[in-house]
């Protein structure tokens, strides 16, 4: 079972295992990397958007909080952090 970030429960830290860079534009991919979202890094999903669609996803990467859309989150595979 591959877990994707867009379905991940809020408040639980996970590790990025793979990113499907082909599923997004080059610019989007680069911005993800500039935010520090890349294979192997640990993130925590924090908030989902308002009742309008619950779409954007806010997550913490290191000491930073960033917003991405569910579409990009769906291209990010995650795995639980081994205790």
């Amino acid at each position, binding site marked *: 079972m591959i877990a994707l970030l867009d379905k991940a429960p809020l408040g639980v830290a996970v590790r990025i295992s793979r990113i499907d860079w082909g599923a997004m534009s080059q610019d989007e991919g680069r911005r993800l990397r500039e935010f520090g979202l890349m294979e192997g890094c640990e993130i925590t999903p924090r908030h989902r958007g308002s009742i309008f*669609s619950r779409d954007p996803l806010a997550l913490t990467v290191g000491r930073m909080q960033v917003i991405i859309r569910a579409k990009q989150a769906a291209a990010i595979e995650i795995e639980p952090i081994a205790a």
Partner: protein
Amino acid sequence: MTGAIPSIALVGNPNAGKSSLFNALTGARQKIANYPGVTVERKAGHASFADGRPISLIDLPGTYSLTPASLDEAVTRDVVLGRQEGEKRPDALIVVLDAANLDNHLCFALELLALGLPTVVALNMLDLAERDGLTLDPERLSRELGVPVVPTVAVRKRGLVELLSAIDGAIQSHQPREAVAAPRNDVSLHQRARAIARVATVDETPVRRWTQRVDRIVLHPVGGLVILLVLMFVMFQAVYAWAGPPADALEGLVGTMQQWVVATLPENFLRDLIVEGLLAGVGAVVVFLPQILILFLFILLLEASGYMTRAAFLMDGLMARVGLSGRGFIPLLSSFACAVPGIMATRAIPDEKDRLTTILIAPLMTCSARLPVYALIIAAFIPDRLVGGTPVGLQGLVLFGLYLSGIVGALVVAFVLRRTIAKGSAAGFMMEMPRYQMPQWRDIALGLWQRAWIFLRRAGTIIAMTTVVLWLLLSFPKAPEGQSQVEYSVAGRIASGLEVIVKPIGFNHDIALALIPAMAAREVAVSAMATANAIDADGDEDAMAQSLGERLQGKWSLATALAFLAWFVFAPQCISTIAITRRETNGWKWPMFMVGYLFLLAYAAAGTTYWTAVAFGLG
């Protein structure tokens, strides 16, 4: 060094506190202009070293790397590489880092250091990092990076002297060296950045607990939206409630000046021009300065506190429904102050179609230039009372409704555009969410002062000129005894022609007359009516004593007044907006389209309002 004044650029990630540092270094000695050819704001200012030698500073747009994703980020790259037209390459860089976000901000810093320019790192917002539970070692960081690192707290002016002397030293001792190949912003760069951040960090406790606690409430899927709505509602109520006394004072001042001119100058053409044209026209607009400043105060506070990004986050879902992104929320909210900076701010939107749509709907956001019109009509026609035992004022409620109509209209238009002429894939939305911060009064005051100055300069130029031209058109040819001067004049005759077109939607001669000069700027509608009324009342003591609102009350029906309000929700009457749209879309096609569709909507909205009101017996 030669005798030339060294120029130093501030560069860094968004939210590194660059602008606060820039304000702290330069104080009010700033000049905001545009880079030639592009409309990115160029912020420059002056400061001096401890011994008095002057330096010039520029504040570059915040970006994550030297590979730009948007127009303003491209300016940052071009300036630091010396490629920006009309801007010489800076002699030195101050790289601004948020002390609490080292591992991310160091990536860009490493890229900048590789350029080989004299560089000093400002480890900014160190106090907040400490509050966040971080203890850093600036000396260790300096050893790792090979350049001086100066801890700064821009908002308390801490570390500024040290920063300037370090940059002085860096320029003096700089050995020109070949720039090393720019490191790619990828995994290895991030690993290096993280490794450096780790050794420079002495102690660390879990992250930003305070911000997270607030976010849990503010970003709540339902509660967050309620808070946002309440905030906006309070903002628009405050525009009304707080502006009264200062606006009255300004009005009194204009009246005093008019009386003084009447008493001092002999009765002639010049005196009429000053009293009826210049003072009546410009004065009618300048009294709205307090309201505009209150609106800007709120917008600046929301921006500085970090709330604006939360609002964008909350609105993104709704905006995605109509094919936009939360990114567009910030330009659109700025458009409530003025569509021109709002349209300029769309440059941060990476997607072309998303950006075009945002530009086209920006004029639907109720800008501050509409406030004079709304304020005048609402004050004259909407009773000043509370709504059914609540503390909500009816006038404020109507104003809120006008703002809301603009927003709903914009959403509908965006929805249609994104499915027709601006069709394209769903736009992305990626943004950093800054931590909450106490807004600094100095930054806010500086921002307000700059807005006030821009507004007054506009009043002194465009508005003064159009009112004077209008006064001339209204004053000639001289009407024979017994006929109305306003009707008989050149402007009156043009207005009579236009009246035929706007009569079906309930507009009278007054309005037709005001609409033409209001093409220059919406608030001119108010000064135009003031000038026309001043001429009309010429010599009549009672009429002179009445305010413009009172005069309109006697002449317009409620249906007409409401239709006039509805017209201005949509009408694209602002030369500056049309000009900026032309510049931002590189051609006349889109501004022409914008003007066309907005006039159609304005006509339809005013008509519907008028006919509905008449049907309810308000005609």
